[in-house]
């Protein structure tokens, strides 16, 4: 592809003495579902706000479809945002909210009504078009915000933790819907989230943010199976880090390694190499915290297929043997990308 939907280069942003974004280079392809994943304060929202035009970068440039928009105000950029708090206009009803972008761009009344109604139908809210946002549930408001942004047919849709305020069931449902909508409209989605499940489930590619920088960019599989840094390994999924003496003793190699909890097999077999410190029952799975004799603490996840709850609690304090296949040991910081 010759031009990218979004290209960031050398992007920096300081708020007084605090450097929120400390040098970002990133290219996002047309039609991609791209996630920015990171803990709060890692700079992902600030990057999004610079793409939207709400913040002026301290240094660096923002390009949309090959055009430098770094200094353009938000209303001259072909992007739309779904805000974390939705930011629906409380004095306008649903259809007026959705029409707003068309109205300020002087689209004829008849056409904008038709397009707004189509957008509302697409998010299955056609029957609520006369409601005020104040009289709607969180999930409904979220959909109005989505329709209000999509009706303008932007080249890029920015989503700032749009599912953050929803309960788990609704979140999972909206994840599927968002992905489907993105496939249907075919525009670039940039999705900011601190929820690794969300990022892994929905994205074509994920950028993991750490302290104002991007620690890793890759497909969900790459980021999960081959974390570039121990931060990525720890933030994306649960990770057992082995380093120093423990690594040499268990793996026979020096360095920092990660083994995912679900890749570890726990048996009662001999010779035992650790003791169960904690048993956490979580419905479909159980998490065991095992202190290895070699001096590392490992988390093991097991499916609750055979075990009964009763026998689980008796596991605490038992000596066990942990084994894993060598191919599941990931050396941190070494590029395994195919």
């Amino acid at each position, binding site marked *: 592809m010759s031009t990218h939907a979004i290209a960031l280069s050398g992007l920096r942003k300081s708020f007084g003495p605090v450097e929120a974004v400390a040098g970002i280079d990133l290219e996002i392809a047309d039609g991609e579902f791209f996630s920015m994943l990171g803990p709060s304060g890692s700079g992902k929202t600030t990057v999004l706000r610079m793409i*939207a*035009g*709400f913040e002026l970068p301290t240094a660096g440039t923002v390009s949309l479809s090959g055009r430098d928009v770094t200094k353009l*105000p*938000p*209303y001259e950029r072909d*992007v*739309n*945002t779904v*805000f974390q*708090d939705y*930011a*629906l*206009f*409380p*004095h306008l009803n649903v259809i007026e909210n959705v029409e*707003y*972008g068309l*109205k*300020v*761009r002087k689209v004829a009344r008849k056409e904008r009504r038709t397009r707004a109604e189509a957008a509302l139908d697409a998010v299955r809210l056609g029957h609520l078009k006369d409601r005020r946002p*104040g009289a709607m549930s969180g999930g409904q408001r979220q959909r109005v915000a989505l329709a*209000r*942004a999509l009706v*303008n047919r932007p080249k890029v849709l920015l989503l700032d933790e749009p599912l953050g305020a929803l309960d788990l069931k609704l979140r999972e449902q909206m994840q599927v819907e968002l992905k489907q909508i993105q496939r249907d409209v075919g525009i670039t989605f940039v999705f900011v989230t601190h929820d690794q499940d969300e990022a892994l489930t929905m994205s074509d590619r994920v950028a993991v943010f750490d302290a104002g920088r991007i620690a890793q960019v890759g497909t969900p599989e790459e980021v999960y199976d081959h974390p570039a840094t121990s931060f990525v390994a720890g933030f994306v999924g649960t990770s057992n880090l082995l380093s120093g003496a423990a690594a040499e003793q268990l793996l026979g190699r020096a360095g920092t390694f990660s083994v995912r909890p679900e890749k570890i097999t726990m048996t009662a077999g001999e010779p035992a190499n650790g003791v169960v410190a904690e048993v956490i029952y979580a419905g479909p799975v159980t998490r065991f915290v095992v202190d290895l004799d070699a001096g590392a603490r490992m988390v093991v996840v097991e499916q609750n297929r055979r075990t009964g709850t009763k026998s689980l609690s008796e596991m605490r304090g038992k000596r066990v043997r942990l084994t894993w296949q060598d191919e599941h040991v990931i050396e941190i910081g070494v590029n395994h990308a195919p």
Partner: protein
Amino acid sequence: MTRWVLRVVMALGLLFIYVPLLLVLVNSFNGDRTFGWPPHDFTTRWWTAAWNNGGARDALWTSVKAGLGATAIALVLGTMVAFAVQRFKFFGRDTVSLLIVLPIALPGIVTGIALDSAWRSVIEPLGLGKGLFSVIVGHATFCVVTVYNNVLARLRRSGISLEEASADLGARPGQTFRYITFPMIRSALLAGGLLAFALSFDEIIVTTFTAGPGIQTLPIWIFNNLFRPNQAPVVNVVAAVLIVLSVLPVWLAQRVAGPEAGASRT
């Protein structure tokens, strides 16, 4: 037990405030020229007399003009300062905020004397003598606060996310102001404006010092006629009108600010 004590105390307090006001209203219909109590005659004679009293009518008209003028100035300046203080960071911002609020706390006599001497030593030599305009300016000094406070509170509560959303959807700054910001602060402007009008309408001290010759607002007219025995019944009527005209904007302002505040919090 304590509940009952508190209720009684509250009732006494409210009685103490409102019974005298009620008395004025009742007495304006009292047929007895010396206001004998309890009133045994009902009459609208005083109301007719007041209506036909040229001095009182002129004063009412002057008060309305002064109130509208001061409110207009307060709306423009109060809104502008509220936006400056809430939306921008600049050197001395907190000081500006304090200086805007201060005049409402200053004793009216101080404001009055200060304005009087400023007008005589600075503005009169420029060719603009004291008159209705000086009263309007004097009232505006403390009326700005009500608009400022109302608009500031509204801006603080609503934040800038709606305006960002508007810009994001392609609205230019003028459109954002017209479609989003103005509707957002409209009820705050109305509430602040009504309070400003009420403040101006019953002002007497600052008015005394700033009014030019021949300018008489309603409260001043009452004050001047209070001790003339044959004017007493008419004074009662004018006071009753003043009560209604002062209470009405405050009551409206509360109603305007009330439900809106509840709804926008959702």
